[in-house]
C-alpha cells in the first residue's frame, strides 16, 4: 500500500506523480475494470433514480399486487402493495449509497486527524488507542441499538453508528502510514528546515497517506451498505416510507412464498454494490502498491 517516497518538493503531490503508473495498472486489471464499470453503473443508478424509475417508489397499485417480473409496466414485478419493485430498488440503491457515503465521511473526517496525531506523537497515541479500544468494545449493532433507543431509528443514526464503528480501523490505517512516512528522508529534511509538526503533517504526511485512506474508504463502503440494509431489515435504520433495500427484504420475507422474486432483487442489488466496491478497492490497492509493478 506504500506510495514511493517522494522528494520534498513533490511532497504535496502524493497521487500526482504516480498517476500514470496507477492508471495503467488499473487498466490492465480485468477484475478492477469490471469493478469500476459496476461501480459507475451502481452510482449512476442511485443518482439518476428519479429519472430512471418508472414510478414513484411509494406509489401503490392495489389492483396489481404480487406481479411477476417482466409483467407489462412492471419490469421486476410488484410487491404486496403493488408498488413497482424496480423503482423501489433504484431509490433503495440511492439510500444505501447515501448512508455509505455519510459513514465513510464520518470515519475519514474523525479518523484521519486522530490517526495523524497518534502516529506523530506518543502522548496522543496512548490516549487515542484507549479511545479506540472503547469504541471497539461496542459492536456496531450495539451502537445502533443505543442510538435508536436514545433518539429513534433513522437514516442519520444508522450512518452515525456505521461511521463510528469504522473510525478505529481508519485511525489504525492513518497511524500506520504516518509512522512510516515520518521516518522518510523528506520529512527529516523538512524538520531540519524547522518546519512545524502541523506543517509536516498536513503538507508532507497527509498527501502521502491519501492513497491508503482512499483504499480504506473502498473497504468501508460495502461494510456500510450491508450494515444499512441489516439495520433497516431489523427496523433500526431507515424508516418507511423511505425506500431501503433492507426494508424491501424484510417486507419480502413476510410474503416470500407468494412472490419470491421480491426477496431476490434487493439482495442482488446489495451484493452488486458490495462486489463493485470490493473488486475496485482490490484493484486500487494493487495499483497504489509500487512493489506490484510486475502485475499484468
Amino acid at each position, binding site marked *: 500500500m506504500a506510495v514511493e517516497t517522494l522528494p520534498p518538493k513533490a511532497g504535496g503531490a502524493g497521487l500526482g506523480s504516480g498517476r500514470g503508473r496507477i492508471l495503467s495498472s488499473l487498466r490492465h486489471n480485468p477484475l478492477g475494470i469490471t469493478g469500476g464499470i459496476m461501480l459507475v453503473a451502481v452510482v449512476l443508478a442511485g443518482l439518476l433514480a428519479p429519472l430512471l424509475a418508472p414510478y414513484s417508489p411509494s406509489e401503490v397499485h392495489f389492483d396489481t399486487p404480487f406481479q411477476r417480473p417482466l409483467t407489462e409496466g412492471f419490469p421486476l414485478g410488484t410487491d404486496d402493495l403493488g408498488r413497482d419493485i424496480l423503482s423501489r430498488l433504484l431509490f433503495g440503491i440511492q439510500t444505501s449509497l447515501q448512508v455509505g457515503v455519510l459513514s465513510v465521511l464520518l470515519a475519514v473526517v474523525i479518523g484521519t486527524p486522530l490517526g495523524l496525531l497518534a502516529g506523530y506523537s506518543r502522548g496522543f497515541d496512548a490516549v487515542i488507542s484507549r479511545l479506540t479500544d472503547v469504541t471497539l468494545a461496542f459492536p456496531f449493532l450495539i451502537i445502533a441499538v443505543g442510538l435508536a433507543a436514545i433518539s429513534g431509528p433513522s437514516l442519520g443514526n444508522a450512518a452515525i453508528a456505521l461511521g463510528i464503528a469504522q473510525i478505529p480501523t481508519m485511525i489504525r490505517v492513518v497511524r500506520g502510514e504516518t509512522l512510516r512516512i515520518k521516518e522518510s528522508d523528506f520529512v527529516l529534511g523538512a524538520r531540519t528546515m524547522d518546519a512545524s509538526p502541523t506543517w509536516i503533517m498536513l503538507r508532507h504526511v497527509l498527501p502521502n497517506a491519501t492513497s491508503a485512506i482512499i483504499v480504506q474508504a473502498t473497504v468501508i463502503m460495502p461494510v456500510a451498505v450491508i450494515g444499512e440494509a441489516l439495520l433497516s431489515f431489523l427496523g433500526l435504520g431507515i424508516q418507511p416510507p423511505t425506500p431501503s433495500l433492507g426494508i424491501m427484504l424484510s417486507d419480502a420475507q413476510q410474503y416470500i412464498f407468494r412472490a419470491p422474486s421480491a426477496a431476490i432483487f434487493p439482495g442482488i442489488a446489495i451484493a452488486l454494490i458490495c462486489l463493485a466496491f*470490493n473488486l475496485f478497492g482490490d484493484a486500487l490497492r494493487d495499483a497504489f502498491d509500487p512493489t506490484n509493478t510486475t502485475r499484468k
Partner: protein
Amino acid sequence: MGRYLLTRLWQSVVTLVLASLVVFIGVRQLPGDPALAMAGEEATPEQLAAVRADMGLDQPLVTQYLAFVRNTFSGDFGESTRTGTPVTELIATTLPVTLWLSAYAIVVAIVIGILFGVIAERFRGRWPEWVANAFALVGLSVPNFWLGILAILYLAVTLGWFPASGYVDVLSDPLRGLYYLTLPALILGTGLAAVIMRQTRASMIETMTTDYVRTARAKGLGRGRVLVRYGLRNSLIVVVTIVGLQLGGLISGAVVTERIFALPGFGKLTLDAVFTRDYPVIQAVVLIITVSYILINLAVDILYSVVNPKIRVGGAN
C-alpha cells in the same frame, strides 16, 4: 510474557471502566423520566420525590455510578418494565440459544474456511481454487441475512432438508437441537468462513515459500504432508486472530439470524427491548455484550501470545 500480560490486563480494565461509563451516561440520555414511569402519571410531586429517592436518582452521579457497578457485579439488572420479569431471568433463558448458535457457527466457519483455504492452495491455478475464491467473494459481498432468506426458501421449504424456523433446547435433545440450528449456523458462519478461507490461503502461500518448507520438501516430504504439518499449524494462529476480530460481526450477525429463523435468543430480546423502550433490558444487554466482547478479546490476545512466540518477546508494543 508476564509484562505483556500485565499491560494487556491493565488495558482491558481501563477499557471496561470507560465502556461502563459510556453505557451509564448513555442510559441517562434515554428519553423519559424513569421515576415518572415507575410512579405513574398521576403521582404527586411528593410521591415522585419518594420514588426518585428510592431509586437513588437524587444521589450525586458518582454515587449512582458506583451503585450501578455494584448492581452489575451482583448480577442485579432490575426488572423489565414491560413484563416485570427480572432481567437476569430473561437473560438466562435467551443467552444459551445465542451461545449455541454462535459456537456452532464458529465451528462451521473454521471447518469450511480451512478446508477451502487448503483446497485453494493445493490446487492453485486450477478449478478448485476458482470455486473456493468465488465462495470467498460471495461470502464477503452477499449479506448473510439475504442468504438466510434464500436458504429458507430453497433448502427449508422447497427441498425440505431443514426446518424453516423454531428452536429445540440443545441440552435436552442434542440431535434435534443441533438439527434445528444447522441452517442458522451455516448462514451465520458463511461470512466468517470466507474471511478465514482468504487468510488461511494467504498464510499457506507464505508458509509454503519459506526456506524450512523447501528444506522439508528437499528431504523428500510430500507436498500434502508439508501442507498439513507446517501450513495448517501456522494458519491456526491466523484463525485464532480472525475469530477474535470477527466476534463483533458475529454478534450482529446472530441478532439478524435469530430474527430470520425466529430463534428465541439474545438478539430477539435486544430487538424487543428497543421497540418497546424496555430500558433496564437494553442497559443489561448492551453491558453484557460489551463486557463479554472485551473479555473475549483479552482471552484471544492471551491465547495468541501463547501460540505465537513473536508477540511474547516483543513485549507490550
